[in-house]
Every structure is written in C-alpha cells, then in structure tokens.
C-alpha cells in the first residue's frame, strides 16, 4: 500500500531557509509527483496559521501523508505531529525534512546547489512517507517515584518540591552529610544569609516530608538501568559506623585520639575520625571516617550501642520513573605555580578564603599571621579563549565582591585590591560592585595577554599588574594574601556514564534546548538542574531545581507518558529462526519461540525494545524491520535522492 495523497510544506523560516533555498522552486519540483496531493510554501510552518494550514489540508484533500521541510526535527517534529493529529491523520504518517541546518545554513554560498539538495531531500521525505504506516505510541505508566542524585541545594530543592506534590523521592548523596557547597560557603548573595543557615531551613522542611523523601547519605549509585517510567537503581549505602542516637556524641568526638585535616574547611583545621562537619549538619548523626579510624574504641566506650565499628555496607534497590541529576560542580583547582598557587604561602582560592572567614573571628589570620592586604585575582580557570575553560563561570565575580565586602565588614583595616578583566556583577548584583568601590576597595584591570604576576619578597607577596585603567601602568602591590577567584569545573560522575547523558562543549551536561526544553536531556526521563548543567549561583540553581520538579510533575500527576512507537517487528514468514538477532539485542528484548509446526521464530518484547534496529541489521533474511525506518522506506529514499532534478 502506498500513501499517494501527501501534503508537502516548504517553510521559509522567515528567511532562514528562503534566503538561500528557492522555496518556490522546491514546490514546483515536487508538486506533480504522483504521491503528492498538494505542495505549498509558507513563511513559518511552525506558527499557528502554519499548523492550521496542515490541519485544513488534511481534511480538504483527504491527505494520507504529510512532509514538512523546515528546520531540524529535533526542534519541531512534535509540533507538526500534533498538527497532523489534530487534522485527523495518524501522526506517524509524517516526516520532517531538515532543509535549514542541513541545507540553507551549510550551503549559504551556493543557493542553487542548496535548492537542488533541498529538492532531493524533500523527495526522499515524500518517498519515506509514501511507504509509512500508521503507528501508535506506547503508553508508559509513570509511578510518582523519582531518584534525585546529589543533595546539595539543587537536589534538596527538587526533592522538597516533588515530595510536596506527593511524589516519592529517593535522595542519594555521596557525602555523609547533605547541603553541598552552599553549606560550605560563607554568605550567600543576594540575601546575605549564611549558606549553612539557608541549608538548615531547608533541612527543617525536609524533615516534615520524611515520609516521602528517603534520604541516603554516604551512598553511591552502583548501577542504573532501564528507561523512562522504569529505571532500576542499585544504591550502596556505605557504613556510617554510627547507628543510633546518643546524647554524648560530643564527648566521644573529643575523646577520639585521631586528628586529620578537615576537608570541609579545606584543611584549614583538623577534625577527628568521628566528626560532624559543622554545627547543625544533617543527618544529625556523626560519621566515622574508617580510613583514618584506628578502632581504639574510645567512642564506643562513651556511646555504646550507638556506634558499630563493624557495620557493613548495605545495598538498596528500587525502581523510579524519572531521574534528576543534581550533582553539582568542582571548584577549579589551579595548577601549581599558577599565580603562585602552592608555590607561595598566602595564595589561596576563593572557596578556601570563605572558609577562612568563617573560622577567623576578630582578626583575619592565615597560618598564624594577620592578613591586612588582600588581592583578588579574577577569572582563574575561566575565560581562557584558547585554553581548557573557554567559558565564563558566571558566579565568581559577584561571589568575590560579596566575599570582599563581607571581609571588610568583619575585619578592621583591610586593604583590598581587585584585579579583574570585566566585572560581571550582572543584574541587581551591580550593587556589590558599586558598594566595593564606595568602600574604597581598589580595582585594577588586566588583559589576558598580560596577566598579573605573583612573586614573593620577604614577608610579602607582590602582585605585579599592568593596569588598563591607568593605561598600562605597571603597578606593584605588596599584599599578605592573594585570593584566586576560581571558576566552576564540570564533574564527571559514574552515573553520567551509566545513563549516557550527553555533555556540552564546555563539559557540563547538555540540555535538549536552552529555551525549548531547558531541564531535559536527550535521554528520556533524565532531567538536570543546578551546576551540573552550567555554572550558576544559588538563585539560578534553586530555580532550575524547581523547574525540574515541575517537569517531572507533568508526568507523575498524569500518571503516564507516551513513548515513540519506533520498535522492531518480525516478519514471521521470512524469519527462519536462526537466532542471530537474539544476542544482538542490547536489552534482551528478543527470544525465539516455537510456533505451530515446530518451527522457531523470533519474538520481540515491545516494552523492552528500545528501537535501535540492531536486530534488523544482523538478520540475514531482512525479516526484522524497525518501525518508522523500514528498509523498503530507506531504499525508496535512496532512489528518490539520486533521481535527477
């Protein structure tokens, strides 16, 4: 059966296409093809009237196929399928042909060739649709169960929002405590509130939702499989060695004889082997760091049954319908010698400076010495045009200004220099820049070709800058401390590999489209928020976390979603039962079953089939076809493309 009343629509895309491709000529070239009932061009096919055009034509011409030649199907395939469906036609009797990204834009200096190419591509689309069959989507139940990976501010926000809408949340955190980098920071801009305070409040809310949020700390995801609607998750919860409550934890911590650098404070202080990172940390139970514990038993003497030094890791398994990745970032770690880092004492990064502030009351001291003069160097590990990090890390300018102002307020007589490229205190954050200037902090501007140089002279660090604001004058600043305003680096978590989520060029996770589908990834049911997607501040992070919750709720409140019907099908007449396809399937969706007469045939499990088509590729008899990409369709497309224009 051939669909022979096809409607063909060539989009101008407001000039994006029609500036290069002669859309009228394309219409002329296809309108008399035997399979075509009507062919038109239109300014914006994706617009309301453009879609209406399709709907009306389907009714008026009794169309049995539709081809739209416009932009990439990744943008508007769903849009047009909707229009086709509203017109009363099965939405899979439709093909979107890409003549924008794949023709007009890549051949803009060869309009004639681009037009010829467009004609061939459109003809291939007509060929494909002429052999298309009606398909129906596969409905997948969406139980209100979600895995949130990472319990920093993004993960907590997302978990809370979901739980409040009756979604069961599994919140998995690698660290023994939640709160991530916000808890570690000093003051959060623009509220000016302490990061740990903000986290504490969120934790209070979290406690109210205990029945719906299952929190696993000290936990890693061991395996992740499945697809949207049913991901199977295996979590290994590592032992905390503190298994119950005890009123004397503080004594136990004091008695612990082990002292190691405290990572929460970037080694500025020491902690015990049994510890809390900070007051009010959650969960409220301390943790024992077994790598450093010598099992002396002092803590057990005090807390007894609350501590079990022999506790073992546990494995938890569960199913969820969607996964939210909120795994955050790493602060850029400067190379040794980069602006004197790890070369001279007193050169530290911004996150370390923030902890130092949290720990130094009265006077700002570092390694026992009082700090009076500080130079902040901006864009360390960011905006490297031809380097590793071309991107701007967005938050560091304001974070640095915020920290310097906080320092000025907390300690007397500080002298502060900002050595910057552009101050990107965007939006309302301008006020930090303004205030820093007003308070007498000095700004010096450098260009990347001539970065500042940090040297050591006696007690002092010397920062040499060619200051652009004084038209290139060489200025030497003797300071006690150099703070490197480091950018954000993407992390690479095992879960990314397990899920195969795509990355952007900058190494952060890639959304489908920043404006159309900003929190979804190419992997169905896997959503992203916070700084695993891009550098962001807390405001933007929590907003994206809530947006992820909203997107998830559009599935879970409805209780189902629909999947593409592109799955493999077996032609039983051609199938010889050789079984080559069985091991070829990546999801074990094929099995050989005996049919009447003792013959064996391949059978495909529709729910397990993910639509790769590998089985079809291996079959010696062409007995398996992938719906939507059948071999007869592909052959006819090839025929159409080679035909002369």
């Amino acid at each position, binding site marked *: 059966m051939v669909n022979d009343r096809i409607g063909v629509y060539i989009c*101008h895309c*407001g000039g994006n296409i029609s500036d290069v491709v002669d859309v009228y000529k394309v219409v002329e070239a296809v309108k008399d093809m035997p399979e075509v009932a009507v062919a038109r061009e239109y300014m914006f096919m994706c617009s309301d009237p453009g879609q209406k055009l399709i*709907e009306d*034509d389907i009714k008026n011409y009794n169309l049995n196929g539709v081809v739209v030649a416009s932009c990439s199907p990744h943008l508007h395939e769903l849009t047009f399928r909707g229009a086709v469906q509203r017109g009363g036609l099965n939405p899979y009797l439709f093909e979107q042909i890409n003549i924008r990204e794949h023709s007009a834009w890549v051949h803009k200096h060869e309009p004639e060739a681009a037009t010829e190419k467009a004609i061939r591509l459109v003809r291939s689309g007509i060929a494909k649709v002429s052999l298309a069959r009606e398909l129906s989507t596969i409905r997948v139940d969406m139980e209100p169960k979600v895995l949130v990976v990472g319990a920093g501010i993004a993960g907590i926000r997302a978990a809370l929002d979901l739980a409040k809408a009756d979604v069961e949340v599994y919140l998995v955190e690698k660290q023994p405590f939640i709160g991530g980098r916000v808890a570690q920071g000093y003051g959060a801009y623009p509220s000016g509130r302490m990061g740990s305070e903000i986290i504490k409040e969120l934790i209070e809310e979290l406690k109210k939702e205990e029945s719906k949020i299952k929190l696993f700390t000290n936990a890693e995801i061991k395996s992740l499989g499945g697809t949207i609607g049913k991901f199977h998750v295996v979590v290994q919860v590592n032992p905390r060695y503190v298994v119950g409550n005890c009123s004397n934890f503080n004594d136990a911590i004091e008695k612990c004889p082990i002292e190691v650098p405290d990572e929460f404070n970037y080694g500025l202080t020491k902690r015990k082997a049994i510890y809390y990172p900070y007051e009010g940390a959650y969960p409220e139970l301390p943790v024992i760091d077994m790598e450093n514990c010598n099992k002396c038993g002092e803590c057990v003497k005090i807390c007894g049954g609350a501590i079990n030094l022999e506790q073992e890791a546990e494995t938890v398994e569960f199913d969820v319908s969607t996964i939210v990745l909120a795994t955050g970032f790493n602060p850029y770690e400067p190379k040794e010698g980069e602006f004197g880092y790890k070369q001279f004492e007193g050169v530290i990064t911004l996150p370390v400076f923030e902890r130092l502030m949290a720990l130094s009351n009265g006077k700002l001291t570092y390694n026992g010495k009082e700090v009076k003069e500080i130079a902040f160097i901006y864009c360390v590990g960011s905006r490297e045009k031809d380097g590793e990090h071309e991107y701007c890390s967005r938050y560091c300018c304001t974070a640095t200004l915020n920290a310097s102002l906080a320092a000025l307020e907390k300690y007397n007589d500080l002298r502060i220099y900002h050595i910057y490229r552009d101050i990107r205190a965007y939006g309302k954050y301008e006020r930090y820049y303004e205030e820093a200037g007003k308070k007498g902090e000095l700004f010096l501007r450098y260009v990347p070709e001539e970065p500042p140089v940090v040297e050591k002279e006696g007690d002092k660090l010397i920062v040499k800058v060619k200051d652009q604001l004084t038209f290139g004058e060489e200025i030497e600043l003797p300071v006690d401390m150099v703070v490197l305003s480091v950018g954000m680096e993407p992390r690479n978590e095992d879960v990314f590999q397990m899920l195969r989520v795509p990355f952007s060029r900058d190494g952060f996770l890639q959304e489908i489209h920043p404006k159309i589908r900003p929190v979804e990834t190419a992997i169905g049911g896997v959503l992203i928020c916070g700084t695993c997607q891009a550098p962001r501040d807390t405001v933007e992070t929590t907003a994206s976390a809530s947006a992820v919750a909203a997107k998830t709720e559009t599935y879970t409140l409805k209780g189902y979603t629909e999947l593409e019907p592109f799955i493999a099908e077996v032609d039983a007449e051609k199938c010889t039962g050789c079984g080559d396809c069985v091991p070829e399937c990546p999801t074990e969706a094929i099995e050989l079953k005996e049919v009447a007469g003792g013959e064996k045939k391949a059978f495909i499990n529709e729910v397990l089939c993910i639509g790769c088509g590998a089985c079809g590729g291996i079959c010696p008899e062409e007995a398996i076809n992938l719906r939507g990409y059948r071999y007869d369709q592909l052959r006819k497309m090839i025929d159409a493309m080679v035909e002369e224009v």
Partner: protein
Amino acid sequence: MAEEGKAEKAEKPEQTEETEAKKTEKAEKAEKAKEKPKKKSTLKEFRDKTGIKASEELRERHKKQRQIVKAIKEALKSGPKTIPQIVSETNLESKVVTWHLFTLWKYGEVREVEEVEGYFTYELAEKSE
C-alpha cells in the same frame, strides 16, 4: 547587500494560497450572513448614538498623509528611485518619505528593485500602477 532575508510582507487580503478550509469557512459564514437580513451599519448607529466625529486634527493628519503618499507614488511613476531621489523630486522631508515609503512597501504597494550606491531603488508594484 543583505540578501539576509527578503522581508515578510504584510499578508495580502486575498492570498492566492488560500486554503480550501478557509474558503469553506468563509463561505459558510457568508452563507449565514445572507440568511439574516443585511446587518445595519454599526458605525452609523455609533455616530447617531454618541455624536462622535473624527477630530479636525485627525482629519488634517489624514489629509497630509494622503498628499505625501500621492507625491511619492507620483515620483515613482517615472521609474525606480532611491529615497534621496524621491526627496529631491518631492521636496518632502527625508525621514517622512522613508516612513511613508516603507509603509507602502509593507502593504505591498511598492517593492525594492536593486541597490545603487548604498541605497535601494523602489518601484510601484502592479497593484499601485
């Protein structure tokens, strides 16, 4: 220059590409209209009821606009011209000519011809001839 986009003109009142559906829809609506007695002019009723008339200022402005449009069309009758050429022929202010000319262009009464030394020339579309 700038082959970046033949601009989208305002849609013509009667598109040649009119869809069948629209035609039917229109036909139906026209049919219905016929069934009813021809509707009275709401404008007349509005004028009678409210006594509102177009202000002197409005009418004056409209008159001026008509004169400008007429002068521009007159200037274009002898062949394609650039805006400065129209200006020197009509003695109108340059930005006034620009505004009216592009309004005519928007409504399909004028179209661009070619680039001549940094300006486009414009001619009357058939519709206006």
